[in-house]
């Protein structure tokens, strides 16, 4: 049974905004939208602690689009910065040198490069220490701020600037996306959730749920990236929706290690519907269709949902993977 929530419909999304309009990020950026929604739920008293990434350049002296606190740390150690802020506030409040009313919710915000790669050690430390903080990873599946190089979040088949699709490497990136949700869950973070901007109510409720939990509250938000992924910026939300409907981006949460899918797409849309909307996957369709690669992606999504359904007791109708070996027409 779901806990009581103040979010019954999307109309319950708080109208107050803590990010001013007109920041320096790209039009259609899923990352800043996720941060904006996140902030709406947490309210005004927040200290964001950031690692190098797209969000970093929004705070460009002397301007800030933010109405709350901000600290940029370094690429590898934003969770340690959160530790310092949290501990300082706690110790000053405990010693009576700071009124409780000055307390802040401490939120790490990083892209996938920091979360999946260079900052994973610092995140592990913060989780081990049961640090009371939120972690919002806006995941655009590559190093976007530096021009879209591969990260361990980049999915199989994506072309990036450092895994370009070429005649001798026709598939682009050959590694599978790291399962950061499971990595964080295995470290015993009390709450881990995935988010998509297209599923706002699910998003709001998960952040709300985190506010009632002490310790590390870890979120991975799909962050559609028009410039890196290669699509029209007006389609960001549609694209995230498609990522959820194809089953590529599962919406789920883990409470004390118990995983539950919060949205089950009963009939999965074929992955090719999602892939073909984006420049980063265009080599999978042109000049000829790479059916092997598309089949690999479809089979991996199908296997995921079969296993999840078996574990949680739901059924998902999965599309057939394209026949391997011959280009379809």
């Amino acid at each position, binding site marked *: 049974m779901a806990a009581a929530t103040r979010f019954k419909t999307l109309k319950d999304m708080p109208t107050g905004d803590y990010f001013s309009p007109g920041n320096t990020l790209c039009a259609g950026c899923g990352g800043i939208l996720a941060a904006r929604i996140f902030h709406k739920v947490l309210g005004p008293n927040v200290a964001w602690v950031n690692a190098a990434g797209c969000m970093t350049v929004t705070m*460009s002296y002397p301007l800030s689009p933010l109405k709350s606190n*901000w*600290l940029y740390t370094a690429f590898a150690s934003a969770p340690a910065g959160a530790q*310092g802020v949290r501990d300082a506030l706690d110790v000053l409040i405990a010693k009576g040198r700071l009124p409780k009313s000055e307390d802040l919710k401490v939120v790490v915000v990083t892209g996938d490069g920091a979360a999946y790669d260079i900052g994973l050690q610092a995140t592990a430390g913060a989780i081990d220490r049961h640090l009371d903080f939120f972690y919002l990873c806006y995941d655009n599946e590559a190093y976007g701020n530096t021009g879209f190089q591969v990260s361990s979040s980049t999915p199989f088949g994506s072309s990036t600037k450092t895994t370009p699709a070429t005649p001798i490497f026709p598939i682009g990136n050959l590694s599978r996306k790291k399962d950061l949700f499971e990595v964080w869950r295995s470290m015993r973070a009390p709450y881990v959730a995935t988010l998509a901007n297209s599923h706002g109510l699910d998003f709001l409720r998960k952040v709300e749920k985190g506010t009632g939990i002490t310790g590390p509250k870890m979120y991975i938000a799909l962050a559609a990236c028009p410039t890196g992924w290669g699509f029209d910026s007006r389609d960001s939300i549609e694209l995230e929706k498609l990522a959820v409907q194809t089953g590529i981006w599962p919406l789920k949460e883990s409470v004390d290690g118990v995983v539950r899918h919060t949205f089950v797409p009963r009939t999965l849309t074929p992955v090719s519907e999602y892939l073909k909307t984006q420049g980063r996957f265009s080599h999978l369709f042109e000049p000829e269709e790479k059916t092997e690669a598309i089949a690999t992606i479809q089979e991996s999504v199908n296997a995921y949902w079969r296993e999840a359904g078996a574990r949680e007791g739901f059924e998902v109708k999965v599309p057939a993977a394209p026949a391997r070996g011959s280009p379809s027409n």
Partner: protein
Amino acid sequence: MKGKLLTGNVAAAAGAMLARVDYVPAYPITPQTEIIETIADWVREGKMESRFVQLESEHSMMTAAGAASLAGARVFTATSSQGMLYTIEMLYNVSGWRAPMLLANVSRGVAAPIVLEPDHNDVLAARDSGFLQFHSETCQEVTDLVLLAYRVAEDKRVMLPAIVNLDGFYLSFTREPVVLPEQKDVDRFLPPYEPVGPMRASAPVSRGSSVFEGFLYSYFRYNQHAAALKAKEVFNEAAREFEGLFGRSYGPVEGYMLDDADYVIVMSNSFTGLGRQAVRRMRERGVKAGLLKLLLVRPFPSEEVAALLRGRKVVGVFDQNLAPGSGGIFYPEIAGALYNTRGRPNAILPVIGALGGKQTTAKEMDAIFEEMVAVDRGKAPSPMFLMRKDEMSRVKKMVSVAEGKS
């Protein structure tokens, strides 16, 4: 006044306790561990009202330290050697944040090869980071410099983090008498830390913002430099007050038997004691020897160095560090301090010694002064690299074992 016998490490921890630090993020490394173990004990026994947290790396430790300092806590931490190198990125950040926390560095040579005993390549790797640097010769200085460093770092005219350096083994594990100041006097000397623009619900701030214009970046960097330079005057003020309260006197540099000295050796940290002994031996032999100790390394006390070395015949710079392909690190700093001054010494003799804590004998120290005299008589001041014949023959034996020859 008689002191308690304390190791340099406990003297550092005692300084932190007397400074009433709020927060100690830590990460262990030999030979620093006794500092953080001692503080952890005191916190858990309720003797020290601080929060102690062990992090998962020095990089994270310094990130937490700087962030907590920005949020309004007085922060102390400690590292050594590889730990210092591992967190270099954060030293530049914390200094750029103008977060006046304190880092005790227990000097130890850096790998490769791995070594445990001291030289100063670790702390001098932080030379350009914007941290103030205070280097201690004795365990008493360790405690005193912790208190002085907070006072200077947190001064509104400075607002920069600081390093207090103590040599591994020679100070860290050596017991010396240390007079611990009374808490009430320390409280008079060191008022509570007042952060500038801390993160607060009622008054949000952005810290560590990006700066994309070179002129703006230059402005902030010049500002940091000006604050670091100002720290010398602030240190002198604080040292006068410290002397009034505690009776011990400190300055950016310290001269030893300098009055009529012709041959002056420049040293820092615990090996300075060997230099003092050498000066006394030389004086007995009729050589007008003297010593200049660097206590303040950042800001570099150029004026004091120039004033005290003016008119000397030969200056020897004892560098307990090595910049391969260049030489010692202090040598060009001393030369730079002297070059544009009138009556500068006739020659500067570069000396590299005591790397990895290499035992340095009286004979070696004397040889430095003898070389200075030879330089005065016309010999070219070519760099000396201290290594004795008996040591070299041991090296040869070990090399032949390593090569499987014996």
